[in-house]
């Protein structure tokens, strides 16, 4: 910006300098980011040069403009009068400089916007693809929120820093150097005076930032407490009311609120001091220049135009300086974000497919047989939960998995579908070790209906079609009919084209389950994996679900996380899970005779009912 503009006023909320997070390996992360940019890094270099160029042109302009003023002064005090042609020429010259500077600045910004959006697009794309290549065990140790934060916050940080901060830094550096040089050409003394204000400003700013950051941190902390308390109390308001907890809650809130107030006003105060303080130093410099400049001009050592140009330079000096002060913060947080993103992109992926994958071997017309051979498994190597598990399952058999909540009922399923690899022994499908079969081929054998019915934001038809992406509308409809959900879907506003909204809140839990059953039916798998739990479903829907599941299971090998007695009793094999491992296995009769954990579990639920 040109002209004798006043220091910019305090921006929204004051200059809160958020303590940035730091990268552990700054150089490494920066290098990776540069490599990641590929061919674009040269474009970025061009952008940097343009940014510096724009700054240089803008800096040169006031010096030229000063000559117009000098010419005017000269004309006014000489006999020949003012030479307007000459002034006009100088002004055109200045205008041209400004225009070039602006144009270069615009080209630079335009290019950089392209580079930045391309960079963020590719980062997000790569992260999203990486999601699907990571082993499932990765997500045991990492929360959903963390991964989401890579896609959203971290990529955003990198994007903002590229589109704004980094070019700003470049042009700030160029501006500060350029202005210093220009000021030196006008007056060494005055330049020295201006340069003297820098350390004073820096010390003052550091002092204020230190105080302000302390209160800003505690403000953020107590804002967190206040918001946390609000969230908790609103979420639990029935319990609060039921136990008459309103008063104690208000008291606790009052304490947090009071502390928040204290740190908030102090934080506001100190961060509000920043601008006046630096502004005051700036004003001192301004006064000094007027004084020294005035004296020099009287002595003829300097022209009025020089004073005018110098004032413009000084006014332009503070802003890029304060931006440079934030350089390290910006670069650090960019590097930290890049580090997290690249760490994620560099995580170890699922084991590669077998070098020489074998086809799925169907040894009979009925389908594949499955064998667990001395299987050992633990989610971590030092905690083996399954040891020496063996079982042979013939096509069409039904395996029930039972056990209390948290006993690890899905573990067997995860091994079977190779979401996890066994630690010892082997799982054989059709006589072939599943590690020798391509994952896609293996998983194509299975259809899955889980308790938390997973549906995505799309039409109902698309959600059913998920089981077989190429399926026709007729097939989708037929699957829905078999799943007892066709009638329900047709009563909905757009029928099969109705879009399921977030968390599919417009369809009940039971109906969601029916839709996932339809999906599995459409997939027409050889082996089924079912979770029977229907705890939050009303009786009628539950009957529908049971019918649908029975339709689905007919003639297929099925692994059922069982809750219904009829399923358990008819199962060809029951696996009783306890504390992550397999406690017992056998048929219903065998297990009852054994009178162990299963018998205990089974009997307990009907104790009360015996009298009826």
């Amino acid at each position: 910006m040109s002209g004798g503009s006043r220091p910019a006023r305090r921006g929204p909320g004051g200059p809160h300098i958020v303590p940035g997070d730091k990268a552990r390996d700054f150089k490494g992360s920066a290098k990776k980011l540069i490599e990641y940019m590929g061919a674009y890094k040269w474009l970025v270099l061009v952008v940097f040069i343009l940014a510096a160029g724009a700054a240089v042109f803008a800096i040169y302009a006031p010096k030229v403009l000063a000559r117009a003023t000098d010419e005017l002064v000269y004309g006014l005090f000489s006999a020949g009068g003012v030479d307007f042609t000459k002034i006009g020429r100088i002004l055109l010259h200045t205008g041209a400089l400004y225009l070039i500077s602006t144009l270069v600045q615009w080209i630079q910004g335009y290019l950089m916007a392209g580079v930045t959006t391309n960079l963020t697009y590719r980062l997000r794309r790569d992260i999203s693809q990486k999601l699907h290549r990571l082993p499932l065990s990765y997500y045991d140790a990492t929360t959903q929120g963390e991964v989401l934060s890579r896609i959203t916050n971290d990529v955003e940080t990198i994007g903002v820093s590229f589109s704004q901060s980094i070019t700003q830094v470049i042009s700030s550096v160029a501006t500060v150097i350029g202005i210093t040089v220009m000021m030196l050409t006008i007056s060494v003394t005055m330049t020295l005076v201006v340069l003297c204000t820098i350390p004073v400003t820096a010390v003052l700013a550091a002092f204020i930032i230190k105080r302000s950051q302390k209160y800003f941190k505690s403000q953020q902390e107590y804002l967190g407490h206040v918001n946390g308390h609000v969230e908790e109390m609103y979420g639990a308001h029935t319990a609060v009311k039921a136990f008459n907890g309103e008063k104690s809650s208000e008291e606790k809130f009052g304490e947090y609120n009071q502390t928040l107030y204290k740190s908030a006003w102090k934080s506001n105060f100190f961060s509000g001091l920043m601008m006046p303080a630096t502004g005051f130093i700036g004003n001192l410099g301004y006064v000094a220049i007027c004084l020294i400049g005035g004296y020099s001009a009287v002595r003829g050592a300097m022209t009025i135009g020089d004073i005018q140009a110098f004032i413009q330079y000084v006014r332009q000096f503070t802003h890029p300086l304060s931006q440079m002060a934030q350089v390290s913060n910006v670069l650090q947080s960019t590097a930290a974000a890049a580090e997290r993103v690249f760490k994620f992109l560099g995580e170890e992926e699922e084991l590669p497919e077998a070098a020489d994958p074998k086809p799925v071997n169907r040894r009979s017309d009925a389908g594949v047989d499955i064998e667990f051979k001395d299987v050992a498994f633990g989610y971590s190597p030092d905690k083996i939960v399954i040891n020496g598990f063996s079982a042979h399952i013939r096509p069409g058999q039904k395996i029930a998995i039972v056990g209390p909540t948290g006993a690890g009922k899905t573990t067997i399923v995860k091994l079977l579908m190779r979401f996890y690899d066994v630690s010892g022994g082997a799982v054989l499908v059709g006589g072939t070790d599943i590690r020798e079969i391509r994952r896609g081929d293996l998983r194509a054998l299975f259809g899955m209906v889980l308790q938390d019915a997973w549906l995505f934001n799309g039409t109902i038809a698309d959600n059913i079609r998920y089981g077989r992406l190429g399926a026709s509308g007729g097939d989708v409809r037929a699957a829905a009919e078999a799943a007892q959900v066709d009638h329900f879907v047709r009563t909905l506003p757009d029928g099969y084209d109705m879009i399921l909204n977030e968390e599919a809140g417009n369809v009940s839990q039971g109906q969601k389950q029916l839709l996932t059953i339809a999906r599995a039916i459409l997939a027409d798998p050889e082996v089924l994996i079912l979770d029977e739990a229907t705890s939050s479903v009303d009786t009628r829907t539950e009957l529908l679900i049971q019918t649908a599941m029975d339709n689905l299971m007919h003639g297929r090998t099925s692994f059922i996380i069982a809750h219904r007695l009829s399923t358990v009793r008819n199962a060809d094999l029951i696996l009783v899970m306890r504390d992550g491992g397999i406690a017992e296995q056998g048929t219903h009769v065998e297990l009852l005779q054994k009178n162990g954990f299963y018998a205990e579990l089974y009997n307990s639920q009907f104790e009360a009912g015996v009298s009826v």
Partner: protein
Amino acid sequence: MVKLVKYLKPYAFGIILVLALLFGQAMCDLYLPNLMSRIIDGGVLAGRTDYILSTGLRMLFFAFLSGLAPVGVSFFGGRIAAGAAMALRRDIFAKVLSFTNAEFDKLSTASLITRSTNDVTQVQMLLLMGMGGLCYAPVMGIGGFIMAMNKSPSMGWIIGLAVLALLMAITVAYLLAAPRFELIQKLVDKLNLVSRENLSGMMVIRAFGTREYEENRFDTANKDVTKINLFINRVMVTVFPVINVIFSGTSILVIWVGSRQAASANIQIGDMMAFMQYAMQVIMSFMFIAVIFAAFVPRAAVSGARIAEVLTTESSVKDPESPKNFAPSQKGLVEFVNVSFRYHNADAYTLRDLSFTAKPGEMTAIIGPTGSGKSTAANLLMRFYDVTEGRITVEGADVREVLQHDLRQRIGYVPQKGVLLSGTVESNLKYGDPGASDEWMEKSAEIAQILGFIDEKEDRFQSEISQSGANVSGGQRQRLAIARALVKKPGIFVFDDSFSALDFKTDTTLRRALKEHTSGSTVIVIAQRVGTIMNADQILVLDKGRLVGRGTHGELLKTCPEYYEIASSQLSGEELGV
């Protein structure tokens, strides 16, 4: 927004002080270029160094004053903004705590949270800005304009032109970008949604081998966001160069026009230079105001309106002006008399004409499919809602005629999902009765079958419970919630589907222990599982809000087809006793 002005009333004096300080600061700042022009015209051009020095010292004085004023502004402004926000937060919180389910349904919990947190912060931010730049900028703009006109009225049009150009540039940028800002929020939400779905559906996606499908879905969302981001970024990178052109064009124009005027002796050179600086100040002020109005005021206004809505909403459940007393002789007695309930704005009744009596020492069970009105009955008894028709009496008093506090004191309520609060096991268990003895707390935990779990913990009753009990399982949460109700020693127990997360074995043991220790109390159990309630003294079967059966398990199996349907889906033939 107008309704919130009263929160500034206590600070009227402070606000006037802040405004005065801002005004003073602006005056000082405006005076400096004027003094500079005197240095040029009266000092440099006249060759008087003593005048330069004396004027310079005056400049120093005004620069100092101008630096002092904002310290006061920051001090008072910071306190006022933070103080008003604190009062606002306190009142909203107290208000929302007085709300019952009806208001939570209407305004939604998520929205109430945002209103109490983010919206208050928005308003606070606007106040803070209002105390600073927002007031300073207009003074500076108008003052600068007056000073400039004073220096050279005939060049005033240059400022007008520059401001006009600036406003046009900002308006065009705003018109281009604003609708897309809204859109971009939606697209980003969509991108986040797809990402979340990809994470939560990891197993399903791998099982069905639909990785490519998901990648395409993400890519579509990603491309949409990228495209619009690029557009907005390019608008933005165009705006700033344009503003630069306006600034530099103004200074060139001032010198061109100014030198003509100077040649005809209409203006002095120092004045021309001062004019240039004033012109810049005016443009800067306009820019600042435009940005604030485009970016912050609308947002804060929306926040203010949302806050005002909370503060003006009245709780639908109110305490009576002259509360009645409970009848001690009817301790524990609960009576529903022709109770009907329908939600505000709903056509259909959720509960219709329900009458029953629950007596001390007896267990009354309510069963039925989801949506049959079971939980509504409990909510009405707790007075989370008021009945639409009929009445509910507890210990002889209509629940609407006693204090809510006293009513709830008598009831041990176990909500469906447990609902624990952050703190320790002890703070949760003693939530209903902070004065309860440790022995009784331990006993209650034992009855609720949760003592074993507590004993396993190193800190036992001092073990941490995180918000909403996230660090314990669903079953443990339910058992802790049951213990919490037991600690209260109420005459009436309400279990709202409180056993659903327990495995059958724990369910059975727990119910046996409960029966022993609640023998003198009125027990109301709401359940989905027949196994949980088949020993109840009376079972009420609800269907679509109506009572369709009443009796014992054995009776209902014979007389109530709805009950039989539920039972037969859960129990085998022999267990049904047929």
